[in-house]
């Protein structure tokens, strides 16, 4: 029997069959609808890799297990499906940790499968043994140590259910080598976990719905805070109905970008530390906040005691542990966002919000955050130019993955996300090195979409080895490095808060174009705004991956900025005499 025939035969194991533990792993994954897995083989997971040839799943070989976890994460964020990462025991498993923590902080559904030493040597410090379930206890939604073959299928099926139900998150399944090698009866249907039942705290109470509706109907200055939960529960349509029908302006969190169209007249843009000034002002002046699927992160609220002091707060959130964590809610609606909004909308007939909307429009008109892209070309290249032009040229349809830092904030400010799931970024954990692998994951999930990896020169070097993965997989991923020769955001903090003592932030980097070339990826350096458009078009028209090294203004900062520990309206604005007006040297 050829490999191909065998793969076909194992595609639908509908009747109970005797299989090895390794085969059960793949058969269960096939049953869960998995078609791609990101991973790296090793001794304790070799039986599983050996069995892969029999199953119709494509394995993407990464260069570091952190890359596998980020790729599974990017895959999940772009597609809404569960991402799967795989690694061997010991160092393979520990290398996943940063990626798992990233997914945990941003509530991304992910299943990690790790090999473990044989059960008879568990606890003996055997070669490449590590207590990965212990290590990942606080950064997984749940995890399993599986030592018996017959437990593999139920554990993996349950892992998928836990990963995607309620507030999504990563789940790890650690399987000993002997469990992989022994055989057991595989029955996919019988391994089905009990149906997910939201626990009793997940209930929307009618009285609270009516209270919330009354608050919304009578509010003079309401603001909707649109968070990641809108994307997670596919509540885009409902949130739009709410905003349009009640004429309420919308501010989004970083992870909420794309949940409400950026070009929609009611969309004010991003809130928080580097948010638009008029959004933050509107929040501070609001008399009602309707927080939808967001968790009042400290980067969003500034200091809790000064946050939107005169407003009532309606908090709609699936995780009861988030209620009153940072900001006290006046009405809490605990449940799936779409479900809650569908129950809430019939109670909201309509409202005239023009006075409040006019106030915001006026404040928007006087703010000058975006001026930099409108200034005449001074010969300098600003990251803002890159983001704005990338958005303009791709018509906002590309999936963009970013690292963490200045470029991430500029992306959030200048790339206008009209479509859901077009921004793949590490919000909660702030993981540098996230952009390249998560962009690869997004491309694997959505091969027909244009994908741009936007990375800083610092973050890019953390996972740059994954360039080889792009080549091996022949992926058409475009890479934009925003190269300012610094760990830019850290430098900005040093400039603002540490008397410009640029300790350990100047960064010597390789020639990124040559680095790409060494992998067989063509590239271009871009130094001026005049070169920008043609470079982007060259990358887009190239069939295959392409790298652009944008050598941008070195000491530019992200404005506005709310210093950590300050109130939302106490922001640092771009200086009156911006760098663009400096004479050219």
């Amino acid at each position: 029997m050829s490999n191909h025939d065998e793969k076909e035969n194992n595609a639908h194991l509908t009747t109970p069959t005797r299989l090895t533990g390794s085969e059960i792993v793949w058969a269960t994954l096939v049953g869960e609808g998995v078609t791609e897995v990101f991973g790296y083989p090793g001794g304790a997971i070799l039986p599983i890799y050996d069995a892969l040839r029999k199953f119709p799943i494509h394995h993407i070989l990464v260069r570091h297990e952190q890359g596998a976890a980020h790729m599974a994460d990017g895959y999940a964020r772009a597609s809404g499906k569960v991402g799967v990462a795989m690694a061997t025991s010991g160092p393979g498993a520990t290398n996943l940790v940063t990626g798992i923590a990233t997914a945990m902080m941003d509530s991304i559904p992910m299943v990690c499968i790790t090999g473990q030493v044989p059960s008879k040597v568990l606890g003996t410090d055997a070669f490449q043994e590590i207590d990965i379930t212990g290590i990942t206890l606080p950064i997984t939604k749940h995890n399993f140590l599986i030592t018996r073959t017959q437990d593999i299928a139920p554990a993996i099926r349950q892992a998928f259910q836990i990963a995607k139900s309620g507030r999504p998150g990563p789940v790890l399944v650690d399987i000993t080598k002997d469990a992989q090698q022994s055989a057991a009866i595989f029955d996919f249907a019988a391994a089905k976990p009990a149906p997910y039942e939201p626990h009793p705290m997940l209930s929307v109470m009618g009285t609270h719905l009516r209270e919330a509706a009354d608050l919304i109907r009578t509010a003079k200055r309401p603001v909707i805070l649109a968070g990641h939960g809108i994307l997670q529960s596919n509540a885009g349509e409902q949130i739009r109905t709410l905003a349009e029908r009640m004429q309420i302006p919308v501010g989004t969190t970083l992870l909420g970008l794309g949940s409400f169209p950026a070009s929609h007249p009611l969309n004010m843009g991003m809130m928080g530390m580097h948010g638009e000034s008029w959004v933050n002002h509107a929040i501070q002046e609001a008399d009602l906040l309707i927080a939808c699927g967001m968790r009042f992160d400290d980067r969003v609220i500034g200091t809790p005691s000064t946050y939107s002091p005169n407003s009532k707060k309606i908090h709609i959130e699936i995780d009861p542990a988030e209620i009153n964590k940072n900001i006290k809610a006046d009405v809490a609606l605990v449940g799936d966002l779409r479900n809650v909004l569908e129950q809430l909308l019939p109670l909201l007939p309509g409202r005239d919000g023009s006075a409040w909307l006019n106030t915001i429009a006026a404040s928007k008109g006087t703010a000058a955050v975006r001026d930099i892209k409108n200034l005449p070309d001074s010969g300098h290249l600003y990251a803002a130019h890159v983001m704005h032009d990338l958005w303009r040229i791709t018509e906002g349809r590309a999936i963009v993955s970013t690292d963490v830092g200045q470029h991430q904030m500029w992306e959030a400010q200048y790339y206008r996300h009209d479509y859901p799931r077009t921004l793949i970024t590490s919000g909660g954990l702030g993981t540098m090195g996230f952009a390249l692998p998560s962009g690869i994951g997004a491309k694997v999930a959505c091969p027909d979409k244009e994908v741009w990896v936007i990375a800083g020169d610092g973050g890019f070097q953390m996972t740059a080895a994954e360039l080889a993965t792009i080549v091996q997989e022949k992926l058409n991923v475009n890479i934009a490095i925003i190269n300012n020769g610094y760990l830019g955001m850290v430098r900005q903090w040093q400039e603002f808060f540490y008397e410009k003592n640029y300790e350990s932030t100047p960064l010597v980097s390789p020639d990124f174009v040559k680095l790409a070339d060494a992998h067989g990826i063509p590239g271009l350096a871009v130094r001026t705004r005049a070169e920008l458009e043609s470079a982007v078009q060259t990358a887009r028209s190239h069939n295959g991956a392409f790298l652009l090294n944008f050598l941008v203004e070195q000491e530019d900062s992200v404005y506005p900025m709310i210093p950590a520990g300050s109130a939302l309206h106490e922001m640092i604005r771009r200086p009156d005499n911006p760098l663009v007006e400096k004479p050219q040297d």
Partner: protein
Amino acid sequence: MLHTFVAYVEDKPGVLTRVASLFRRLNINIISLAVGHSERPGISRMTIVCDAPDQAADRIRASLYKLDDVVDVDDIAKAPNVTRELALIKVAANAHNRSHIFELAEVFRARIVDLAPESLMIEITGVESKIEGLIQVLNETEDRVLEVCRSGKMTMRRGKHSTGVLRAMGAGEPDIPKPGNLPLENGPDNFADNI
């Protein structure tokens, strides 16, 4: 302030770590933790007493619910309840001073459960203050307390007002509280009322 939670958890390896780890992450000190089998097969019952800010109770309860191995959580500190603790106390005692310890034990309705030439062991159950009282009296009478082993607090709601019974009675519907069926406070369905 002190909070008392009862958690029904699956009887599996690592569950205790998950629960304890949750309190560690929230930087909350566990004062006492008692675990044993419950009335449900495969399910253990934990009584957790912790010292946490007044307003933290809902969040702790919600966080406990997030653990996959946790089946049910009840916050019963404010509800009418019965609380007991068991202690074994070994006291240095010989033929000369045994008799007054016997008397003390009788006053405290404790029992002598072991007698050796140089020591004896007292078993006492009761509320925390009763156990503290016996230990204090023993110390004040200069009897040397050699060892103290305490079970940690065990708590149960009085009467029918336990979460499990309520669920069995079908009081779980979220919207309309049925008078008399729902616990007066901190019940599973009026979480949002507490905030």
